């Protein structure tokens, strides 16, 4: 009796905690903001319901048996040695099969449905995603722009993420929009997602990819269509020339220190590095390296000791630069914005 009570108390406590402790809608399977995520959640609910039913049936029989057939003090009877019961065994073979069929039909139909490529009439947007240790490259082939760790999408239009990895296996997961898909070296993968409404959704790498796997984050920022088109134009017509004296010094230093790995478009550089994340319009990003909030102080910390922020990152430390030089770099990088026209 005592342990049944303890178990009941525990279950009730857990359930209360589940229903009261709601998740953050920016990072949650149970509060999806996308069509795919909602379809998946429906299946999760259906399977949970069937499985709860099974668990409850087992629990009821179990609790009854444990209480009813406990050995009482002084009880020495020898129970009847039952061999089995064909009827009962058929019952608990057939009922699970029926339950599984109920689950299997929507499972298979949804499996096929979410892989279906959108029709051209739905104006899908293709975005090429490449995974690197430990950052994300997002390339818009139709618009000819590239960004890193933050992907802007139009709400209400299907997005086709065409994905590949540069090095090890990564996985692309935006819980609030829908399930994940692996990025593999040497193999193209496709994931179709849609955001129902504008907002910021958190993305994660979910396949162990090295020391900073935990910090390989990205953000999906969904806009109204008009706003999204404006963003695309501002990225296409970006001007990365420095405006202040300090920033001009920074621009020169980027040319000496950064441009071998990072690309900044329309900044007058002859080289556009491809090993690291593209920094065009860096000042508009919400985060540095997908981890720190984007502000001058954090950027300074990142430049001086990247390993402290993201262990195993390929980014070398620039602590050897003078403080003034770091200030100039920060000034220039933070001034990089999309064009305002």
């Amino acid at each position: 009796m005592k342990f049944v009570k303890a178990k009941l108390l525990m279950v009730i406590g857990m359930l209360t905690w589940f229903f009261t402790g709601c998740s953050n809608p920016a990072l949650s399977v149970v509060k999806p903001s996308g069509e795919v995520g909602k379809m998946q959640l429906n299946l999760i609910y259906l399977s949970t319901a069937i499985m709860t039913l099974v668990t409850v049936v087992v629990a009821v029989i179990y609790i009854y048996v444990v209480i009813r057939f406990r050995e009482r003090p002084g009880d020495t009877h020898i129970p009847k040695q039952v061999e089995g019961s064909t009827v009962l065994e058929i019952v608990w073979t057939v009922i699970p099969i029926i339950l599984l069929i109920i689950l299997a039909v929507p499972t298979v139909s949804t499996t096929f449905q979410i892989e279906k490529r959108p029709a051209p009439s739905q104006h899908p947007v293709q975005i090429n995603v490449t995974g690197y240790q430990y950052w994300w490259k997002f390339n818009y082939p139709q618009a000819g722009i590239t960004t890193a760790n933050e992907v802007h999408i139009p709400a209400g239009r299907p997005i086709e993420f065409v994905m590949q990895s540069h090095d090890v296996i990564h996985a692309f997961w935006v819980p609030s929009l829908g399930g994940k898909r692996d990025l593999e070296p040497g193999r193209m993968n496709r994931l179709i997602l849609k955001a129902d409404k504008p907002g910021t959704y958190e993305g994660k790498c979910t396949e162990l990819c090295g020391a900073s796997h935990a910090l390989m984050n990205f953000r999906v920022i969904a806009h109204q269509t008009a706003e999204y088109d404006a963003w695309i134009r501002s990225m296409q017509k970006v001007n990365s020339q420095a405006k202040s004296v300090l920033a001009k010094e920074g621009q020169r230093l980027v040319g000496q220190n950064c441009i071998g790995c990072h690309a900044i478009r329309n900044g007058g550089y002859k080289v556009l590095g491809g090993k690291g994340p593209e920094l065009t319009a860096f000042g508009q990003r919400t985060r540095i390296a997908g981890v720190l909030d984007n502000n001058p102080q954090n950027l300074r910390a990142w430049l001086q000791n990247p390993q402290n922020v993201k262990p195993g990152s390929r980014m070398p430390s620039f602590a050897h630069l003078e403080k003034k030089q770091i200030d100039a770099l920060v000034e220039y990088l933070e001034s990089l914005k999309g064009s305002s026209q």
Partner: protein
Amino acid sequence: MTTIIVLLVFAMFLGGIFTGGYTSRYVKRMEESSIWGWITTVDHKRIGILYLISGGFFFAVGGLEALLIRIQLMFPNAKFLVGDEYNQILSMHGTTMIFLVAMPLLFALMNAVVPLQIGARDVAFPFLNALGFWMYFAGALLLNISWLFGGAPDAGWTSYASLALPDYSPGPGVNYYVLGLQISGIGTLMSGINFLVTIINMRAPGMSYLRLPMFTWATFVTSALILFAFPPLTAGLFMMMFDRLFGSNFFSVTGGGNVIIWEHIFWIFGHPEVYILVLPAFGVFSDVLSNFSKKRIFGYHSMVFALVLIGFLGFMVWLHHMFTVGLGDVANSVFAIATMAISVPTGIKVFNWLFTMWGGRLRFTTAMLYASGFIVTFVMGGVTGIMLAVPPADFQFHDSYFVVAHFHYVILGGTVFGILAGVYYWWPKMFGSLLNEKLGKWNFWTFFLGMHLTFFPQHFLGLFGMPRRVFTWSPGYRLELGNYLSTIGAFLMLIGVIFMVINVLLTLTKGAPAESDPWDGRTLEWTISSPPPEYNFAQLPLVRGVDAWWLEKMEGNEKMTPSEPLGAIHMPNASHLPFVMAVGLFISGFGFVFQTSEVGAIGLIVVIATLFIRSFQEDHGHHIEPLELSEKGVNH
């Protein structure tokens, strides 16, 4: 190499000092010492104890690693264990718990019990049995000394390419993984074959297949799974080894290889592996539930059929670990249905267990508590398994903490509870004394509640967007409470384990001696003394039905009817060759880890030399004569 020679000389030196110096009788004295006895033993009961000790030791190591993980994850942005160090701990926790804890502890129970349950005097190949143990131990040691020399594996227990290839994991860590698992894996394969042959060939007269106790049936099916599942692992590990040590390109994309092939090979082994872990536990629970309900197992035939069916289907579902790889809607659907199908035989087993208890007289000893705690826990882990089989839902669950919760419910609630139930149940048969029931109950309740407190919240962590294998998480996403509770639960489990350790120490030092049949048992192991004599059965028993011993007791017989007259008993000779062979493999593995082929070759020469010696050795074993038996107090 020099180090090894120095160590060897040092060991001989110590042996000399503590036994009376180097004299002409040195070798003889060494041979008579108890340590030498344990090293050279081929007795299945002693090998079972060796498995139990080493599995228990690595359980402590793996548990410590788990605690370090939970300490780091207790609060957001913690700096206790970050980056690659965390990945090493995480990889070794998984590898240790699966290969060095769960499997050997199950082998401990199989070794201790299966020959007794089928009325045999030993396993079919006692030499191979010892070799299997020593190879497992050599591999386990090799894996764990990685902490001291060069760093542990850091690519997860699944060791996916290309993260595990030298370009992305340049240290010796993954070499240890490849070679350690290879050596211990071949040991496991040997033991599996051994149990298959033992159960086919060594059953006592009258012990037909459909009279085998459930634990023996589970061992039989498990051994068949080992036979078919471990060769893919062996092949895969060889390819990975060649990629890492000799620059082949099986998995390297830049060299024309393919990273997905490793995932296929790994899971073609890996999924049957989870059934290898859980089926023996099913067997333990069947025996324990039947014993303490005082009833025969409900639906024996369908229980056997369900075991076989689960084992068979276990080979058809590996792709459900790879739904997110993007193999297409057809493949995903087929494997989803196959996976769901496994739940039918599993459901049959659960209901048969419930109806075994139904109408019985339930005695809640610690073993029984673990068995009944298993039923609820395993059902919770099983149903999340079916939820994971739904591919679109799996796209959300996969590689999140939901999966972590699921497989810990299954492996802890199934395998570990099974091992603990088995240890409490068969401890008197293994050691001749009973574990303390009061401490046992404390052990059960703290471990059971701790387990649920640790892993239940992790379902929600997964749904709230926490990926697995991350060394940290950010505040503000409602992950705080779950992670906090989970760590508290882990410490509660630690307390449970401490109770267990105290219990074992107390029992070993001043436990009351156990009778031959302390639980009013039903199967043959309870017909002989605790612990049994070297030869187990002076006369092989005649088996007349399922639950052979119970049958005799119900008819008022005080012992089994013997099936043969008392005669000389043929026993295998002890041998030091398995140990030497394992030492050779260890040296070889260690050499190859550091890519010094010379050392690797020396180790292999030792192995081949011992193989050669064994092949030409005339070892016919020895006989124990009836006269000696009567001196040892066996009644005619």
